[in-house]
């Protein structure tokens, strides 16, 4: 008897180990402890036993029955904790995301800082007229500044803007002083393309006009932008520049982050990257757009967004940016 019971228990354990479904467990249960089960037969046989046997086997069978029931209920309750799924949870997953262009990401960061300082973000047009791109910026017809930027002139008398600075003029015409605007956008220069030159790239223009706006204010704004974008201390130098529409004019250079200031093709081996040209708005420019230079001063600056993106992401070849190559672009998943 004893042996029989033990063998039965063993069989139950064995069968339970292989099953995972509730129905299977219940089937095994009914097979071993159900009404027509062998165990039940043993229980029923108790009543025909001698009293002595009853005393021995009664408690034994009841204990074993409890043991068996415990076995089934354990198994069943275990079963309730699982979702009862059958797959390989160690398989890898494929990540697919879209991406934003690095210049878009950097432009967003720059406009965010400027917006917090109260700048309005404007959008200019790419096909521009001579007046807004040159004339109203104090760049008359035969001014060599027009040499500095080889212009794409168009057969309809217009041109592809060489700088976002024309948006200063649009803004002054539209809103007058005081004014605090920035304008990101694409500009064009008739240049041969190589690792550090593009004919199509991005800038952001900034302009503040108010009473008592000083050079020192401009430096503060420019530095905040760089600190925000690079989230680190960046080495900066300011030196004189020349732009017909600002006076005094400056160039803010940043230590080249690609080579760490040692010199590389991106920084033309100088260790410095020209990043933010700017200056105090030229009195003639204010006058031409109907703002009184005796009352107002202002500053304007342009940031090379393309260059900023290259510095930030250590992109060594400018040609990637307009290549449309997804192998490059998919690095810039949206944060």
């Amino acid at each position: 008897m004893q042996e029989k019971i033990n063998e039965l228990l063993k069989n139950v354990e064995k069968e339970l180990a292989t099953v995972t479904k509730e129905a299977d467990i219940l089937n095994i249960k009914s097979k071993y402890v159900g009404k027509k089960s062998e165990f039940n037969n043993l229980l029923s046989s108790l009543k025909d036993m001698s009293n002595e046997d009853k005393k021995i086997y009664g408690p034994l069978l009841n204990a074993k029955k409890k043991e068996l029931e415990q076995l089934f209920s354990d198994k069943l309750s275990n079963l309730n904790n699982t979702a009862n799924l059958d797959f390989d949870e160690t398989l890898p997953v494929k990540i697919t995301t879209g991406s934003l262009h690095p210049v878009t990401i950097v432009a967003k960061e720059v406009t965010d800082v400027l917006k917090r300082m109260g700048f309005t973000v404007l959008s200019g047009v790419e096909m521009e007229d001579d007046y807004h791109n040159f004339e109203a910026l104090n760049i008359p017809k035969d001014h060599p500044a027009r040499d500095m930027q080889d212009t794409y002139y168009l057969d309809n008398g217009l041109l592809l803007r060489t700088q976002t600075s024309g948006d200063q003029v649009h803004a002054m015409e539209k809103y007058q002083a005081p004014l605090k605007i920035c304008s990101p956008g694409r500009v064009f220069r008739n240049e041969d393309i190589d690792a550090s030159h593009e004919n199509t790239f991005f800038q952001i223009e900034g302009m503040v006009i108010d009473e008592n706006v000083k050079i020192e204010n401009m430096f503060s704004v420019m530095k905040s932008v760089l600190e925000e974008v690079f989230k680190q201390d960046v080495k900066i130098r300011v030196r004189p520049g020349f732009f017909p529409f600002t006076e005094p004019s400056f160039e803010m250079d940043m230590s080249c982050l690609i080579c760490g200031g040692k010199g590389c093709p991106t920084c033309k081996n100088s260790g410095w990257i020209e990043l933010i040209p700017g200056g105090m708005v030229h009195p003639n420019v204010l006058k031409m757009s109907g703002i009184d230079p005796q009352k107002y001063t202002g500053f304007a600056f342009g940031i090379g967004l393309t260059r900023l993106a290259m510095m930030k992401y250590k992109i060594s070849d400018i040609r990637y940016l307009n290549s449309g190559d997804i192998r490059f672009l998919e690095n810039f998943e949206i944060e």
Partner: protein
Amino acid sequence: MLISCNRLKKYIKNSEDIDFEKVWQTFTMKTAEVENVTLKGYDNKDVVTAKIVECKPHPESKKLSLLKVSDGEKEYDIVCGAPNVRVGLIGALVRVGGMVSGMEIKERRLAGYLSCGMMCAWDELGIGDDHSGILELNEDTPLGVELSDLYPIKDIIVEIDNKSLTNRPDLWGHYGIAREICAITNHELNELPILEVENNLEDLDIKIEEPKLCRRYCGIKVKNLKNNQTPIDMQIFLNYVGMRSINLFVDLTNFLMLELGQPMHAFDERVVKNIQVRLAKENDTYKTLDQTERTLKKDTLMITNGQNYFGIAGVMGGLDSEILDDTDSIFIESANFNAGSIRKTAIALGLRTEASARYEKSLDPNMCDLAIKRLLYLLKKENPNMTLASNLTDIYPEPIVEKEVILKKETIKRYTNISFSDTIVKNILEPLGFKVSVKSDAYHITVPTYRATKDISLDADIIEELVRIYGFDKLKEEPLQGTITPNVFENIWDNEYHVKRYLANAFNLHEIHSYIWYETDLLNKLGIIKENVKLLSSSKNNILRDDLSLSLLPIVKNNLKNYPQVDIMEIGTIIKDNQNEKHLSIIKACDEDTIFKTYQEAKRIVITLFKVMKNIQVKFIKGTFPSYYDPNKSQKIMVGNKEVGELKIFSSKCNQYIGKKKIAVAIDINFMEYLNIKKQNKVIKEISKYPVVSLDYTISTNLNTLYEDIEKILHGFTNSYIKELSFIDVFTKGENKNYTIRYIVGSDSKTLTSEELEKFKNKFIKYIEKNDLKIVS
């Protein structure tokens, strides 16, 4: 522009106090950007003057000679290949162990003979490009002296970024740079020695026909010039700053241009007797010094004698009046031409010369005569017996005079927090050549003419001088004052960003940037002719795009080489009807056999975009499209009656172009139209308290029936219990096309009974049958 520090030192008193390797950092920070500082001649070692004392031809080689060379103490055997070797010649000897241009000289055998050193040519010493023979020094040169002690071979050559000198005509010569160095290092500038001309001879016949284009013309004739040999130190200087030495007369004109920034020209006096400055005749041709035939325009300013052309004013002289070997009398020109006119001519001829580059910057006409007097001084040093053959003739109809700028002290305060004392203002401005008169509330500043031609005319210009010399690095940043000015609101940029971010996030699109013009190759390959605005300067890729999606095909094609499926977007400018337009283009390219899925996905993008961003349901209708789109499957995207964009499939030719068995779907949305659409308010529908029932029907139609047709019929069936109608699936079975649709039915006021439901079903089935359709199970 290249600058020789040896040259600068000659113009600066006590220049030995200046560290000429380091001063350029300060120059960059205060004046103009220095791109490069290079040491020259420091890689020569033990190069001494030596005389050839014996010269024998090599017994076997025709070219080589066997020399004995003396440095005054010792004689050396040298095997030399130069043709100009001869006894008595004094040249430059590198002794064994010495170095030229970084190369160490060792004892070595040449064609069987030991050579203990080397006699050097110009190019070997790094001071010229002449390799025709060894350097020949004057007969009276002492022997055994380091060559660099006799000549300015050791130099520091500085490259200044031309762009940063655009507004500084005065810095296009060494003297101007020296003036600036003096100002920033607190040194004194030397005056230039000149030859004063008495002008007791006859004036030259010089006429200016175009006084607006030629502001001043100075000329003089000089005779009896026997020596046309340029001194070695000047040759080295010219070479170091990037010019070739030609002969003394030409070199002196170049030297003056490099010294003062004043371009000059020397004509052969036998050819040029008189001067008339006038415009060319359209389409005349003329051969310039570089032996090139040039076609002239009617606005090209020319130097002539009335009949013949002698030079293109300010750009290049002519071949027929060039200085020849036997020239011993010259006509020297020092003139001032209009910047814009010279620039235009130089661009038109494609001939940007050192002279035109300088004239384009608006040179100071007041230095024309000074340049001639300076040139005469230098010329006389080499030709002590020269004689002047005319007056220094100066045609200068409207001389420019020094202007005064008034800078109010209060104006300085409006620009910067730095407080400039009167002393600081004077100390900064006077070394730069300004004269400062201090008043109680202002400075009256006289601007030197070399700064006044374009650079300085306003008080703000003077402030720049003050701040840059004072030092930008000394300015303390100050946050903008919080003026409470309501800001204007424009939202194009924000909207662009939000749409792009949404599309990238929701539909895994990659934002790309492309060019504003069509690739000519693309148009050619697809046989598309585009009439649109063109770039003037280019013959390739010169047509501006009027269809963003089409212009993106090369990018799609390139990406399909790496990915089986390409999903890109751009918000970019196109030019249509001569106007800027901003468009959003999305291209989805895939394998041919997954086109249905891709098309559906594209449609889903359009609908979702408008639903999420504008809460608007767009419609699609048929329309006409350019021939490079499939006419059957392309549709217009409508908001109400307004067309806002297109959902298109490219033509088979385009699809073949992007890749074998590939196909592309384009979404094009006029972004300004999109921006103009107002976002509709959301009104939340109450959720029914009563249960709804979902009923699926499969309607069998013939193969030609579109869902659109079925939908029309379904919309004809109205019933108050209908909550929603949706399309579930379509499949083809034999000759039939079966559409499965789903109704959600229910009531807001009660739970529908099974009788009511049955009634609905029966009504619907009857309606369908009435329309000659069949419901199948």
